């Protein structure tokens, strides 16, 4: 078992592309660290540098306290699961799992015992003599993990291992991966572009964008206290509603379009930095679950919108609405298609399934101000102090 420490690690390719910029990140023994971000953000490059499959341009990588920049993957004692599993198609499951042990020249009976044990952990006992082509996606995924864990590595690396699975299997395998990781209790780097995976699996989540680390924190802290606009927009599904707004002169309320939201004292105490933004433009963030439908007994600020679409999920209604304000999109946090179809002032709210509302009607939301987020329009950083 070992820790992983990356200090100011950079990766610049021959063509000048700077893929990873000054990455400083550490993973403790047994910790499940998830690297998440949109495609091209540098997360896979970072993972490959830890694996030794990419050279480190500058900076230091330590595994177990030892600098390993110039060591081969074999010398680093890491194991990796690839997105497409990379199973050897001409070998049986048992041979795939035992290949690394065979290279270490372990005795045959020892290899057989370890393969059998690994097969039992992963539920592959009945499939050991089959070839990968005869297995389902989930089984191949487990073989790929088996091949990694049988080596008892110091570090476990996974590059989007679930992205080739269908949605239902992905949910199953998420739990499986976590179970296995807890069992082997090894520092784990897990790369994904799926923020739901990141939030549900990681002990800590590192959000990357354009090669730069945006924020590292426990999933819930990341969700509740995003450091900047990108993290706020990227983490959470449905995404946070972000609007251009203006603080009032006394900084006691925020104007979103034609509507004014008074900010309770508790909210202003939590964001004392708002006082500097009196009469200035800011960005306001509202999570969909912080916009319950107003009732007769609701108190506090309200927000009114026009209902465009209602998605009844059974446990809740997801209401797509529009207000007369300008929606803010964080570059890279949503897809180009989503940006292309965006108009002005759209929002999403999650309300009680019994809420009486129809498409085309106006709806009033009782804003949960405890969940409000505020961001500087220029630096895009969150406004706290």
């Amino acid at each position, binding site marked *: 078992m070992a820790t992983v420490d990356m200090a100011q690690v950079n990766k610049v390719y021959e063509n000048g592309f700077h893929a990873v910029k000054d990455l400083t990140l550490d993973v403790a023994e047994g910790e499940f660290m998830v690297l998440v971000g949109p495609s091209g953000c540098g997360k896979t490059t970072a993972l490959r540098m830890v*694996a*030794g*499959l990419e050279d480190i341009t500058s900076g230091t990588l330590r595994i177990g306290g030892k600098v390993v920049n110039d060591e*081969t993957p074999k010398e680093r004692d*890491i194991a*990796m699961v690839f997105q497409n599993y*990379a199973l*050897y198609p*001409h070998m049986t499951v048992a041979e795939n799992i035992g290949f690394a042990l065979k290279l270490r020249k372990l005795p045959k009976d020892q290899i057989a015992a370890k393969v059998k044990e690994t097969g039992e952990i992963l539920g592959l006992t009945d499939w050991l003599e089959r070839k990968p082509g005869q297995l389902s996606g989930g089984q191949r995924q487990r073989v790929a993990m088996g091949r990694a864990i049988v080596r008892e590595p110091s570090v476990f690396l996974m590059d989007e291992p679930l992205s080739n699975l269908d949605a239902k299997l992905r949910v199953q395998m998420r739990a499986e991966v976590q179970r296995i990781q807890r069992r082997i209790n090894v520092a784990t780097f897990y790369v994904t572009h799926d923020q739901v995976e990141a939030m549900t699996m990681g002990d800590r989540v590192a959000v990357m964008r354009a090669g730069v680390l945006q924020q590292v924190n426990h999933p819930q802290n990341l969700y509740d206290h995003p450091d900047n606009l990108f993290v706020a927009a990227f983490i959470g599904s449905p995404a946070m509603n972000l609007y251009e707004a203006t603080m009032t002169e006394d900084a006691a309320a925020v104007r979103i379009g034609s509507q004014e939201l008074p900010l309770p004292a508790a909210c202003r105490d939590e964001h004392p930095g708002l006082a500097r933004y009196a009469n200035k433009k800011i960005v306001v963030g509202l999570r969909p679950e912080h916009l319950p439908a107003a009732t007769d007994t609701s108190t506090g600020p309200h927000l009114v919108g026009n209902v465009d679409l209602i998605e009844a999920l059974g446990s809740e209604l997801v209401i797509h609405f529009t207000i007369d304000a300008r929606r803010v999109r964080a570059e890279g946090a949503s897809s180009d298609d989503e940006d292309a179809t965006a108009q002005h002032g759209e929002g999403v709210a999650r309300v009680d399934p019994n809420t009486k509302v129809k498409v085309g009607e106006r709806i009033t939301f009782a804003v949960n101000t405890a969940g409000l987020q505020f961001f500087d329009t220029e630096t895009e950083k969150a406004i706290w102090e």
Partner: protein
Amino acid sequence: MGNRKRTGWHRVINGVNISGFFVVLFIVLPLYWLIITSFRNPADLGSVQFWPNPWSGANYSQAFVQYDFGSYFIHSVVVTLCATALVLIFGTMAGYALGRLPMRGKFTLMVTLLMISLFPEIAVIAPLYTLLKDLGWLDSYQGLIIPYTAFFLPFAIWILRNYMLGIPKEMEETARIDGAGPIRTVWSIILPMALPGVFTAAIFTFTAAWTEFLMALTFNINLKTIPVGIATFGTPTEVPFGTIFAASVVAVFPIGVLVFIFRKFVISGLTSGAVKG
């Protein structure tokens, strides 16, 4: 028109099937004629028969006894197998390097190989003869094996390189992480995965070497291979067609068997890498 389904007798008797039948007939008929004629009595070859009556093995015994066809067969086997083996050994290594290793000048090398593979044999036969004569390699196995290897290697490299391109790079990365060195990776991982491409290159090289005529005729007088041997059957005034046909059937048989067994590799080997390029 378009994709309407055919029903009844139209499913069998239609333009596509009739055309296909005549194309197949065009290809199969000469082969059929070759085989049945080889089993006819040599004295009866002046008449047309679609089925041997009586069946006779005289042509075969004449080929092996009178014309020493057995020796030609052995020479062909030795030369072809050796040339094929050398082509596969060097071709696999070159195909791997060109398909998977980072190296400068790949494009230039591939173009050069292509040019060599298009070179007409007749243009180099004279200088090759002189070279082999100086080496003392005329009328020898190596006098054919080495030139065959040189001539058939480019095409084999092309096939193998394209096939290797189709192998995901994660295979090598996984092997590296597992602890395999470069040689072990190629031997245990890449080669087994490239086996269909290897079979394809082997089939093409075997066929080319087995049927090569010009160099075999020019460089070897006594150590004849099958094509040259068959061409020298008979005299200027007497052409033993039956014996020639019998020897040809024996010559074609190994090729036919090999291509039939490995037919799926022939197609996949030619078309693999076509998408990734």
